[in-house]
Structures are given as structure tokens and as C-alpha cells.
């Protein structure tokens, strides 16, 4: 099998929340299933060759770093827009989520233009939305799946959009602290404010990205199960910390309500 090719975009600038942890998880879960993996780092200013690419990861940086990245985005936009349209899996976390959109409006009113891959606007709010977070994954039609995703959020930006959300907030703030929704799913794009990093404690999200990547190669088959005891122990410890005893009982409660 041709190696699974993962691109980490601008890791030298967008690595605020240990996003290389997400790469490590994708690599490890592919290797443990016997697939070779090829991770490529594309630094700002380097050319981006999307031929044969299976997954793209875009992390978050500080405001200063995101401004530096935003200035260089126009050269990458045409290729990325084409790939996103074709359903390439793109995982964008925190600042990366904001950069996928139309713009980020600073408190001063100044707008930092994003990649404009999705019709999403983010505006700086008055307070930092910060803390542990748990969401229930939603289907594209907005139905609860009973699956939880846990992590940490830390953002000043309030994000609004009309796409299906990544999840429904059980604990925490989500996109904007108002509408109870978190993140975005559109075609292959999974965008979220949840870091921690996202994938180690949420192996089902990692597998979803891997499955999408394989399906695009015409390999539509279930993934071999892995021993995820440590993964779910860490996941459940966060649910418990937030007063959500575990994934199963969340589902039961959701069904009852």
C-alpha cells in the first residue's frame, strides 16, 4: 500500500496547543494497522504539493503568529480550495479553524483575511472562553450520536456559521458561547476549538479521518480495532471531571430527554 500522506501545515508557527500530538496519533493508528505513513511538514513560504495527499492538519498559533501566516495564505488558497471542494480530510484546530474561514476580526475592528475555504466569520469577544470541554458528536443532519469528544478550549474568537456543527456542547463554551454548538463539519473538513491535543483522547475522531482518507482511495472497509484502554481511560476521566459519568450514560440521558 502506498504510504498514507499527511501534511502538517506551518508547524513552526501554528503549534500552540501541541498539535504534533494529533499527527502522532494519526501516524500511530495507521502504523498499528500496518499502513506505512509519510508525514510532511510544509513551512510557511514553501510550496504545497497536494498530489497524493490524504490528510491535512492545520493547528493554532498566537495572534502574532496567525497574522504572519495569514499574510502568506493567498499563495496557498487556490490549491487548498480545490482540495477541500474535492473532499480532502482537513483537520483544523483552534486558530487553524479560524484561518479556514473568511476573516478574524480583532477587537480593534481590523480584519485578518483567512483561507476562505468555508463561509465562517470569527470576531474577538470581550472575554476568553476557556476550560475543559465535552461535546456530543452530531450527524450531518444535526442528530445526536451519543459519542462524546473531550478536551480543552481557550479562545477569544466567537465563530458563527451555517454548516453542520462538529458537536453539541455538553460542558464548556463551543463556537461562540451562545448557540451551544461546537466546531464545523463540511465535506472532509473537521474544524474545532477542542485541543488537548484533540486526537489522543478521542481515538474515534482520529479513525473517522483515517476512514475518510481510505474511502477517497477506494478502500471502503472498516478499520481493525485497536487496544484503546488508555485512550478511553483518559477520555472518561475528563467526562467524570465534568460531571458526565461516561459516554454510555450520556447517551442514555440524551435518549431519555
Amino acid at each position, binding site marked *: 500500500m502506498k504510504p498514507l500522506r499527511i501534511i502538517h501545515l506551518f508547524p513552526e508557527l501554528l503549534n*500552540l*496547543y501541541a498539535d504534533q500530538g494529533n499527527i502522532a496519533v494519526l501516524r500511530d493508528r495507521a502504523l498499528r494497522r500496518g499502513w506505512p505513513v509519510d508525514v510532511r511538514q510544509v513551512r510557511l513560504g514553501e510550496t504545497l504539493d497536494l498530489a497524493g495527499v490524504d490528510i491535512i492538519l492545520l493547528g493554532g498559533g498566537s495572534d502574532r503568529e496567525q497574522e504572519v501566516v495569514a499574510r502568506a495564505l493567498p499563495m496557498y488558497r487556490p490549491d487548498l480550495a480545490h482540495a477541500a471542494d474535492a473532499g480532502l480530510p482537513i483537520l483544523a484546530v483552534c486558530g487553524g479553524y479560524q484561518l479556514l474561514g473568511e476573516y478574524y476580526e480583532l477587537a480593534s475592528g481590523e480584519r485578518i483575511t483567512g483561507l476562505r475555504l468555508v463561509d465562517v466569520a470569527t470576531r474577538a469577544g470581550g472575554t476568553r472562553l476557556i476550560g475543559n470541554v465535552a461535546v456530543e458528536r452530531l450527524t450531518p443532519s444535526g442528530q445526536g450520536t451519543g459519542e462524546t469528544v473531550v478536551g*480543552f478550549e*481557550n479562545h477569544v474568537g466567537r465563530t458563527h456559521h451555517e454548516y453542520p456543527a462538529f458537536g453539541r456542547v455538553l460542558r464548556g463554551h463551543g463556537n461562540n458561547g451562545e448557540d451551544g454548538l461546537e466546531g464545523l463539519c463540511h465535506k472532509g473538513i473537521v474544524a474545532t476549538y477542542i485541543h488537548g491535543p484533540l486526537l489522543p483522547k478521542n481515538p474515534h475522531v482520529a479513525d473517522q479521518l483515517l476512514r475518510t482518507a481510505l474511502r477517497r482511495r477506494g478502500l471502503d472497509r472498516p478499520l481493525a480495532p485497536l487496544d484503546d*484502554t488508555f485512550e478511553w481511560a483518559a477520555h472518561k476521566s475528563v467526562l467524570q*471531571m465534568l460531571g458526565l459519568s461516561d459516554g454510555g450514560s450520556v447517551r442514555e440521558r440524551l435518549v431519555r430527554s
Partner: protein
Amino acid sequence: MTSRGPMGNDRMGKVCVILAVLSARATAFALRLLGRRATSMPGLVALRLCPGLLGHLLRQLDAFVVVTGTNGKTTTVALLHAILDGQDQPWIFNDGGANLTQGLVSALLPYTAVSGALRHRRALLEVDEATLPGIVRLRAPTLLVVTNVLRDQLDRYGEVDHALACLRAGVRDASTTLVANADDPLCASLGLGRDLTYYFGIADAPQDGVARSEARDGAFCLQCGAELEYTRFVFAQMGDYRCPAGHFARPERHVAGSLPASDAGRLGVSERLSGSRPVDRFDLPLTVAGLYNVYNLLAAVTAARVLGYSPARIERGLGFYRAPTGRMQTVCETPRVVLSLIKNPAGATAVLRAIEADAVDKTVCFVINDADADGRDVSWLWDIDLESFVPRAKCAVWWCAGTRGPDMALRLAYAGVERSAITVVAQLDLVPGHVMHSGEPVYVLSTYTALHALSDMFAVQRGRAV
């Protein structure tokens, strides 16, 4: 802070100070009766009653030395205190790392008369970066030491940029002498366009030739955003660097350390405090373990030299130094148990380097909590360079505990530790029994809120073993 003095110089102000001092004393006394450590609470009580008390006390000082920065504050203060104290006049200092406003007041209160007058007029205080701007507004330090500027507890202060903004506010007063780390670009940038600035750094360090992937937070030119070019790395973003466009480069070091080739050697120091003076050379005992602590030692030595202390007096003072709680502190002798605070990726990676240098078979335990003082966001665990540590650790059994023990276990698994070799201990008080069982040397790395509890628990175990 609303008022400048306690409340001006009126009767009400004096009453307020007296009440605050008396209440704080009563609080400290009650805490001692309960067997609790009185680090911040008395100050908190005093500030409630008299918000202007800290300014009132600080303005009475003749010498006000502040140590700040991301890592190494507590060790640097302990080293500098060992050098300065016990000489002609005693120095007030805050041991135990209580470095927020209430902790500073608590440190000054034992030397405060009921009238509000300070008995000693020299203070050496560790101050948290975020607290610094408020302190400097009350009283500009005579000497300010900045150890380094690294990524720390993101959820508390936002980002490195915020810490840097706080430090810039701290060095604004032109009468303050700044002692800064030349090898750290973010720290060194504090001295740009500023007089009365002295830089320290490491001139020679043995290289281990291992390619490491470390968080390098300051590796960009603050003027043009270009990635800095390094001709040498010491650790994290410390090293010899320059902006490719020529905006910024590592400044000349006024005090430069050269590490000895062997463990038994001494630290070579070459010093040139002013351009007109010839280079002085002397050497000092290496009283600390770990490369990161050499920077702390150099920070303390530079501050002492700037304050006029001779190399001979510095050497004598260093003989009194004892590692503070949890700073590579040996908390038990048989088996040897070493406790070390970890709170951010660069610091934790530096501690791992020091542990790796101890080439014996060992047990390693991580205790990770996520209270406010630890950093609620544990994503920093993934920025620690465990990948290069694990194959060199000579550790067969790994333990994890704390509220985020399961997160740490997962992190270790991804760093290449066999899952069957990792055990999560659910209760903190069970940690000493488990980790000391094999009789091997034990390294315990802990975040802040578990540190003192662990130190006490191992002390009890030590009592049992005798």
C-alpha cells in the same frame, strides 16, 4: 490598587495598617497551630483590610531586588539569597515560591512592626510575571533579574506574548538595573534600547550530538518575524542566534559561564561588566544539577556581581545553598528519591535531560494535576520532549498519578513506553509505597499542587525506613 499610601498619612491609614498587621499575625499563628504552611494566607488577610499595605512596605526598602521569568525563579532566589544573606545586613526573601501579591505581603509581614515600619530595608523577592506590572507601579525595583521567557500555563496568561508584555512593563523604569539572559531571544529583547542592562549566558557547553525536537518559543525576530538563525543551541530556544535581516542578534554577555568537562569540575566564569574593563576570569563550585540550573546560577552570580559582591564572597555564600522543595530535591536517601517540579515543556524537558544524565536503572513517576496553579490545560504534556528521553531513561517501570494521571499515561505510551510498563495510581498517598517498592533510585516529577504533599509523604517514608 486604589490608594497610593495605606490611605494617605491620615489616622485612618495608620489604623488600617495596624489592623492589617495584627490580623495577619493572628492568621499566621493560627495556621502554625494547625500545622499548615503560612505562605499566602496572612498576606491575603492583610490586603483585604488594607489594600495599600504592599506599596507602603515596598517604598520603605533601600534595596529591592526582584527575580522573575518563566522558569528557575525559585532556584535563582535561593541561590542569590545564599550569596547575599548572612553578610552585613539581612535580606528579606520569599522562599517556597509564593510569588503573587499576597505571597509578597506574607514574606514582608514577619519583619513589619505593628506601626507598619519595616525592620530590614533589603528585600529579594520572586515575583510572578503577571504580578510584576502591578508591583513595579508601587515601587520600581533597584535590580530586576529575568531568568528566561518560555511557554507556560497557557490558560493562565494567554500566551508568551502576554508574559513578554508584562516583563516589558517591568523593565520600563530607567533607574532599574536589568539582569537578563542573553541566550534567550525573548528575554534578551527586554534590554533593547535600554541602559543599565547586564547579560549572562553560557559560552561553552558539552554537546551530546542528539537531534532533539524541542519547543522553541522565541525563535523569531520580533521586528520582521523572520525565523532566527542559530549557530548553536543550548536547550529550548537558548543559544547563539541572529535575525537573517540583521535586526537582532544575541547580545554580548557581560557574564559568561563555561561548563566543566567532568562532573567534579567547576564552572568557569568570564566577566566584563563594562566595555572599558578587561575581562575578569574566576571559577565557582557547580552547586546545582542540570544545565537549566547553570543558567539560574549564572543569573544569581551576575546579580551578585552587579550588587558589588566579590567572587570570594559569592563562593562562600554558595556553600549555604540548599535546593528548595521540589527543585531536584533529594527527599529520601534509601532508596534515593529525587523530587522535581515540572510546569511547562521547556522546564520539564530540561529536568528530563538532568535525569537522563544519571545513568543508573531507575523508576520514574509523573504526578500531573490540573488545578489553577498547575495549568488547567494539560496539552503542554505533548510538548515535552519525552521521545528522546524514553530510550535513554534506563527505566523499566513507569508510574502516573494526579488528577491527570490517565493523560500522562497516554502521553508516555505515545512516547514509546510499552503500555504494560505504565501504571496509573488513583490516589496520591499510595504513590510513595508503589514507587519505592523496587528499591531502585526514583525520580518523581510533579506539578505544583502535588509537590508539597509528595515532599511530606516521602519524608514520612524516610522516617519509617530508619
